């Protein structure tokens, strides 16, 4: 990422162009990010100033969905992810091909990537096309497709009744809950919540973590000491208990929840960045950049952060499942946001009906398990692909 086109040979480099481009020019990534975030901010301002509180944001085009703060934050994180996560892969085709070759060897990770891609796409598009799960008391306790339940539990069996047992249909592939809500729809909505948790917390963690890490490394002295001691304190703080305490005192929706996750989980990223920045300063190429008069900000932005990216990404990939699990656990305890149909919420709904309708708990539980597993496999594979020294298990 340090050079614009790595395929160019040294003698083909157009020095005129480089001379012209140095100075205050912005890369396409930065420009795209700024413009898109500007558009989102304009929408936020529009939503706050011009749209009445209970009117949907896009009422003028007839879309009856009220966009929340969380959605705006999600949009911002998706924009940053697109311009700094996906676009660079396209810009550096050679490196992408190399990473892909390394990554492909690890079959569990490949499957995981496919699963996470599925969760991502369905989570984002699903709620747009599938209407929200609705209470339908007459259709409670419908069994999943190809399963059956004694006919005294559901009031109105959607499928055929064979020998006094209600058969499942494809109308409700995973069955329905006590309120008759379709479990498949709830899981799709839960996917979006999990993806929001994943992306927004990642954005917060990477922003704060790299900022603190590089500041500590470059400032040194007292600032370094104070920041890193705070990181130590934060690391020894049992995060789950802290979330629980804060949610108990303040109560709160998913927004507070996600922001909290991000604000109290950046210590690992800060440590990585700091130690990496410290070791990079000793390298020859950083010295060369320093000698040619680059500012500290430029060194950090263009050389230290890109070179630390791999360990930050790996660290974050292993952090995301922790967040998703924490949300599920809190929702299970009944401390989550009861207005959103997250997977943990669904698991706890089904707990009382476990004896005769176990699918209510099992279906979201397995989706949660698979997602956490996929993130772990992916993190493991990234560790191998991005860091050839730590060759843990590429012969999978």
């Amino acid at each position: 990422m340090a050079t614009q086109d790595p395929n160019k040979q040294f003698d083909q480099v157009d020095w005129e162009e480089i001379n012209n481009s140095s100075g205050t020019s912005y890369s396409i990534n930065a420009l795209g990010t700024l413009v898109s975030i500007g558009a989102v901010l304009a929408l936020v301002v529009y939503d706050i100033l011009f749209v009445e509180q209970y009117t949907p944001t896009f009422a003028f085009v007839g879309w009856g969905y009220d966009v929340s703060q969380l959605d705006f934050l999600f949009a911002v994180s998706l924009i940053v992810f697109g311009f700094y996560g996906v676009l660079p892969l396209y810009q550096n085709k050679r490196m992408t091909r190399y990473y892909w070759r390394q990554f492909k060897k690890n079959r569990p990770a490949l499957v995981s990537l496919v699963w996470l891609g599925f969760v991502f796409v369905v989570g984002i598009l699903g709620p747009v096309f599938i209407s929200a799960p609705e209470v339908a008391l007459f259709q409670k306790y419908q069994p999943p497709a190809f399963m059956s339940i004694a006919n005294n539990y559901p009031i109105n069996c959607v499928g055929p009744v064979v020998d006094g047992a209600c058969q499942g249909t494809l109308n409700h592939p995973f069955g329905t809950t006590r309120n008759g809500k379709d479990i498949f729809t709830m899981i799709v909505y839960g996917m979006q919540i999990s993806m929001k948790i994943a992306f927004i917390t990642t954005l917060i963690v990477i922003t704060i973590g790299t900022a603190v890490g590089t500041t500590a490394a470059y400032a040194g002295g007292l600032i370094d000491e104070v920041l890193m001691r705070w990181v130590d304190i934060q690391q020894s703080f049992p995060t789950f208990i802290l979330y629980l305490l804060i949610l108990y005192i303040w109560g709160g929706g998913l927004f507070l929840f996600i922001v909290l996750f991000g604000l109290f989980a950046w210590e690992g990223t800060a440590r990585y960045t700091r130690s990496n920045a410290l070791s990079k300063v000793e390298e020859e190429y950083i010295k060369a950049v320093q000698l040619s008069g680059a500012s500290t900000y430029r060194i950090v932005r263009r050389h230290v952060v890109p070179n630390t990216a791999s360990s930050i990404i790996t660290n974050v990939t292993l952090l995301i499942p922790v967040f998703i699990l924490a949300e599920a656990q809190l929702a299970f305890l009944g401390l989550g946001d009861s207005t959103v149909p997250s997977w943990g919420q669904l698991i706890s709904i089904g707990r009382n009906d476990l004896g005769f309708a176990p699918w209510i708990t099992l279906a979201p539980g397995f989706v949660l398990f698979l997602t956490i597993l996929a993130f772990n496999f992916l993190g493991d594979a990234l560790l191998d692909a991005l860091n050839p020294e730590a060759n843990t298990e590429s012969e999978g």
Partner: protein
Amino acid sequence: MGMGWYVVRRVVFAFFVTFTIVSITWGLLSAAPNPEVRQASTQAALEGGNPAEARENARQRLGLDRPAWERYVDYVVSIYTLEWGWSDTRSQPVTDAIANSLYYTVQYSVPWTILTVLIGPLVGLYSAANQYSWRDHVATGFAFFGYAIPNFFFGIVLLLVFGVELGWIPVIYNTQVPVFSVENIIQLTIPIFVLVTGSVGGITRVARNEAAEYVNSDFVKTARAKGVSVYRIYFQHVLRPTLVPVSTTLVSQLLALFTGASLLVEVVFGIPGLGRLLYNAVLSQDTSVVLGTTLFFTFVATIGNLIQDITYTVLDPRIDFSER
């Protein structure tokens, strides 16, 4: 500047950490509206009294009208002198409530810790010894499974299978049975199993990767060439350097589960331990118990981290203290 000095500084820092945490909890509590004050004013309003007056009275009774620093000093002093207040829902001091619950938490925590310490490094070592064989893949798969499956969900599934369907374990935890009895062992088996699978996974991975580095190292080759027995090679030459990084993971994994998953496992299995105490207190809005259990968990975490750092330095004689 030896190890003793380092340990002393580490202990002082741990104390400072608890102090910071206590201060943060005070900040959180005093910034939020007090539920008791709110309750008093609501009650007054319902009974036709003056809500504002009731609110003032409640504030006076709870000592909230004093200056902030005075309340802060009071709070910190009472935390460190173990005067953690009175639990209204349990009609006993918070410290007593915690001690009572700890009795049940310890019953599963001790076997869980022992099993984790024994199984984790050994399975990792076994994996490294049989690298890329089917045994290794089974162990790795098991590690990933245990690490990834949400403990509370795994608990529910096992309770469904063994408690509801097969009837091998009681669905409701019985507090009446003696600690060292067959009934108690049976009813604690599944919770302990769930927690062990959760904590062992990460440790196995680290132990395997670390041990794999040493399996082909020069000193192991030398030992093999000299004709040292296989067991001696693994337990004396490979296990020891492996244990240094493993010890850190071990403590952090156990702590992470103790302050997170064990709470939910208690709720799932109905064990009246610390997690359930905290859970019930949250449900019944018993602030002093919520605070007490929270602080207890954070203190355990701080002490655990302290132990982790100290074991690390004791186990690895190569660590240089002059820099720290």
